């Protein structure tokens, strides 16, 4: 069953829920998307969570694109999709360390393809072993992390796969300046729940200097405490929580809604050329909506998104 308890009146709430207490109040990490992203700037390494077109931090990435941030270096989950392609299409990216970028059975990632073919973005060919190896080097406080299984391929010759003294591929520590994640639930202290797969997100959170999580709904701290085993990223790893209902659209948000095939189809179609991309997607869907609520209305509304599972194959 899809959830229907997302109250639109609570949209973008920015103040902590008051609790009766006589001790000093605990600091809320709930903030707005713009405030959370205020310090993301040129040259920074930005990690992008989710996998393929699922659980992507789409609203966060559209907000970055609206701010016209330039020259980012990005690293994404080994299988990636919308967020990588959109940031490239919006001209925000100088370098992308990626494994797989596509919309799977729905089509190729148009802006990524164009940029790779034209050489307008430096593509560092990576894969799961070299990306996770780099993240693990950071969480283990090592300069690099050998991965013995990268053998015989041209991936093993890419910049993401330097060799150590023993001749083994040993990706250097990846330490993102900021990581953008989308999950389904969190409390105001940054305790996060993924209702489906968390995939790379907890590792990105541990390896990154600053962690920003958008969630479909804010839940109470008492709910978190009632089932602590369901917390996938504990609050001490998280710097900012943003309430962003349907913030993963047109990607899915596991456990809340599935991906929007029509929306993704329109995205891919718009990406056919630079001109159509600007006219048919970047303008109407990224630049124009003044709020996430307006974006959600534009793409069909909350009820449409929640009902997607009935039409998406």
């Amino acid at each position: 069953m899809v959830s229907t308890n997302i109250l639109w009146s609570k949209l973008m709430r920015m103040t902590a829920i008051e609790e009766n207490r006589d001790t000093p109040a605990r600091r809320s990490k709930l903030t707005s998307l713009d405030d959370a992203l205020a310090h993301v700037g040129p040259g920074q390494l930005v990690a992008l969570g989710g996998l393929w077109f699922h659980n992507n931090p789409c609203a966060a990435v559209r907000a970055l694109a609206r701010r016209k941030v330039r020259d980012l270096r990005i690293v994404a989950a080994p299988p990636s999709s919308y967020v990588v392609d959109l940031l490239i299409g919006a001209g925000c990216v100088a370098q992308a360390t990626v494994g797989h970028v596509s919309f799977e059975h729905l089509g190729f990632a148009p802006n990524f393809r164009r940029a790779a073919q034209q050489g307008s973005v430096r593509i560092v060919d990576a894969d799961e072993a070299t990306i996770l190896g780099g993240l693990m080097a950071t969480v283990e406080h090592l300069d690099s992390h050998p991965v013995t299984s990268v053998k015989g391929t041209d991936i093993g010759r890419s910049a993401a796969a330097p060799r150590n003294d023993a001749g083994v591929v040993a990706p250097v520590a990846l330490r993102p300046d900021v990581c953008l994640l989308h999950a389904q639930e969190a409390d105001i202290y940054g305790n996060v729940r993924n209702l489906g797969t968390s995939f790379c997100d907890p590792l990105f959170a541990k390896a990154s200097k600053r962690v920003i999580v958008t969630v479909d709904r804010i839940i109470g701290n008492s709910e978190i405490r009632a089932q602590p085993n369901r917390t996938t990223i504990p609050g001490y790893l998280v710097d900012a929580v943003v309430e962003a209902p349907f913030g993963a659209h047109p990607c899915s948000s596991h456990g809340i809604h599935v991906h929007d095939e029509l929306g993704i189809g329109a995205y891919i179609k718009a990406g056919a050329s630079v001109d159509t991309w600007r006219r048919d997607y970047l303008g109407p869907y990224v630049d124009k909506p003044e709020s996430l609520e307006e974006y959600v209305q534009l793409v069909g509304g909350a009820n449409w998104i929640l009902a997607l599972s009935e039409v998406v194959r």
Partner: protein
Amino acid sequence: MSDFSNDELMTVLLARELRDGDLAVTGASSLVPVAACLLAQRMHAPNLTLITPAGVVNPKPKRLYQSASDGRWVEGAEALGTAYDLFEMSENGRLDVMFYGGVQIDRRGNINLTGTGYDADGHPRFRGPGLANTSFAVVSKRILLFSAAHTRRTFVDNVEFLTAAGHLGGPGEREKLGIMTEGPVLCVTPLVTFEFDKEKCMQVRSIHPGVDPRDVIENTGFVLRDASWPITAVPTSDELSILRRFVDTSGELAG
């Protein structure tokens, strides 16, 4: 016309190659291999473990979902891993079967998903999607290849970019790099099932019913030895009925 689709045929043929007790991992755009695993579990391999690329262990879906990482695969599964669980297998091995398709697949079973037509600056004329996990081609005990397209553009002499290792340059090349697993053992296409000969070159093991051998030769970009191939055993009514009743209940493969 046959009374099954190409996808159904390929699903059944891959299912027959799976063994009871196998740990099998699937990738993107892999409805056929996923269905093959689910079918094998219901036919002859009840102890087969399937892990999807989102880390879903032994899904038991009400129907097949087009996206390999659709959240609906989660409901009813036995466990939900993370990217780290896939990394563990990437390094430690553990898995028996990995499935790969390719933008290009060469006669040695090497895979290219990265790009074709590279210029002097290293920019491809066609940039492919890339591959999330190349390690499984090294550590998986065996590799089953599949391709929905059987054309000269797909089946080439040599891949232009080696994304995942097949038999590399030929016999002994994997071993030279310390790769001790078997590598690709077959490739299922809508026209034929390929196997690998002693020289680790792809040859036709069997041709699917109703396919003209000339079409196979014309649509394969490398030389095939002779053309007197045995005919592929068609799906049995048992295989098709279990596939349709219990695995592909909404006809995603019926195409």
